[in-house]
């Protein structure tokens, strides 16, 4: 029976005809009660359950997922991991996530295929270079690696960019983060699921929340498509569907749900070994380990719960891609899809207690939740275990919308959303 993944176990299983692998996580029937319930089996929910068990010793935990784990935005993003944000609060948050990502494969004993291939945010004018220098300075002061790239530097890391004299968006330089890169998105969900399951967490799929059990003004559990499940500590990490659950719990959130689409080309030989973002073209691009060119852009401009993108946005993104990389003109698109993202006015997440006691929020990541999974899980687990914020999660409380202490990271998303 092979439980731990290693080169040695792979070798042994090869000799044994691959017959000893166990399923990566258990699929138990839901129990009637738990110490904590996490709603949402995406990266953030699974990470929350894992850190509840690992950091806080709380193992009577259920993750309730209405579909299959990692089937929402965790499986629909462009897999970029970075922490090139401006404000100290954001740096503390995304910096924590980035550091945890760097040790995640070891921590989970699951290869999340983190590839720190670097990312460059291009600057297309003198004015953008001034803003770029300001961003780089802010990142360095906040202890995050950053470098201001010259046009020659950009040419070195992305030689296939459109450097022609008549380019619509010429390169004046860029913001470089060498530790940025990509990770295998499914592996992040599966790795957290496996590690959490091994610590005793029940992962329950095809289990949709139909209502909250509210007694004495406090949340005491959930009604689900698989019966009532009780707990006195409930966290939700459901991204674009946060408002739907909030309505069941009796409150509203500062969230609009939009479709964010992405697409990949047919696989081609290695041609782009970094992540390139052009604010002018409104596109970011990388090449997956399988060789596909992975393409992302801005939001569809129509509030939506349909997990598919609309054509005008796709056209804009592809036009931007070809402006950046004319060489991709003959690529064939293989797949196109969309996820429903929870967009907040200040483009920063909401982490903290909800207006309904015992129910805690992890939402509002908008277009950038994947890179934050380890931090979102750590912070929601801390809230569920202690009932209190720590210094990193405190600024992201829902109360900032009444107090006016917004963390306006509109620029941090890279693309104007």
């Amino acid at each position: 029976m092979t439980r731990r993944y290693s080169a040695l176990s792979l070798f042994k299983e090869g000799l044994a005809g691959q017959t000893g692998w166990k399923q990566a996580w258990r699929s138990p029937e839901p129990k009637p009660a738990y110490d904590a319930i996490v709603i949402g089996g995406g990266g953030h929910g699974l990470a929350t359950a894992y850190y509840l068990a690992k950091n806080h010793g709380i193992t009577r935990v259920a993750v309730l997922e209405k579909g299959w784990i990692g089937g929402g935005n965790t499986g629909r993003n462009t897999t970029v991991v970075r922490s090139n944000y401006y404000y100290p609060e954001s740096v503390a948050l995304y910096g924590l996530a980035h550091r945890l990502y760097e040790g995640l494969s070891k921590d989970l004993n699951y290869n999340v295929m983190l590839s720190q291939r670097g990312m460059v945010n291009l600057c297309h004018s003198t004015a953008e270079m001034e803003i770029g220098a300001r961003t780089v300075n802010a990142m360095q002061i906040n202890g995050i690696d950053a470098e201001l790239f010259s046009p020659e530097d950009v040419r070195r890391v992305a030689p296939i960019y459109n450097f022609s004299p008549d380019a619509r968006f010429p390169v004046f330089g860029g913001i470089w983060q060498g530790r940025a890169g990509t990770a295998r998105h499914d592996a992040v969900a599966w790795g957290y699921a496996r590690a959490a399951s091994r610590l005793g967490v029940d992962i329950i799929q095809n289990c949709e929340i139909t209502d909250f059990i509210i007694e004495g003004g406090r949340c005491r559990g959930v009604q689900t498509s698989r019966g009532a499940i009780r707990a006195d500590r409930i966290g939700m990490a459901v991204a674009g569907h946060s408002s739907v659950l909030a309505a069941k719990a009796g409150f509203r959130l500062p969230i609009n749900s939009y479709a964010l689409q992405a697409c990949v080309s047919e696989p081609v030989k290695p041609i782009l070994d970094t992540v390139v973002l052009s604010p002018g073209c409104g596109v970011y691009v990388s090449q997956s380990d399988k060789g596909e060119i992975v393409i992302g852009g801005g939001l569809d401009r129509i509030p939506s719960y349909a997990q598919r993108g609309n054509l005008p946005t796709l056209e804009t993104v592809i036009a931007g891609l070809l402006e950046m990389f004319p060489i991709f003109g003959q690529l064939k698109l293989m797949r196109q899809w969309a996820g429903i993202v929870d967009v907040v006015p200040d483009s920063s997440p909401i982490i903290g207690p909800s207006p309904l006691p015992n129910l805690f929020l992890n939402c509002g990541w908008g277009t950038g939740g994947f890179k934050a999974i380890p931090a979102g899980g750590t912070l929601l687990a801390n809230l569920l275990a202690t009932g209190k914020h720590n210094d990193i999660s405190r600024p992201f409380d829902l109360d900032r919308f009444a107090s006016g202490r917004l963390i306006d990271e509109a620029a941090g998303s890279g693309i104007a959303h």
Partner: protein
Amino acid sequence: MQLFPCPFCGPRDETEFHYGGDAGNVRPDGADVPIDRWAGYLYLRGNPKGTAREIWVHMNCGEFFVMERDTITHKVLSSAALGGEHTA
């Protein structure tokens, strides 16, 4: 390309329109509006899954109007000029 019905210009490309928030989100009036009421007006949204009543602007003619729309299927159910008899 989806067509949205502008009450003034008729069916037009979706790219000509801009979303303007929940219909019926009325600005609080008076000097002693509590903070929560202001925060609610400025930030909190219904964000319904299913039928939604929304303010839209047709950027070409500049008119604001109310559109009722399904946020799952994107089917448009109705569209009416602001201040008309069909709008709150």
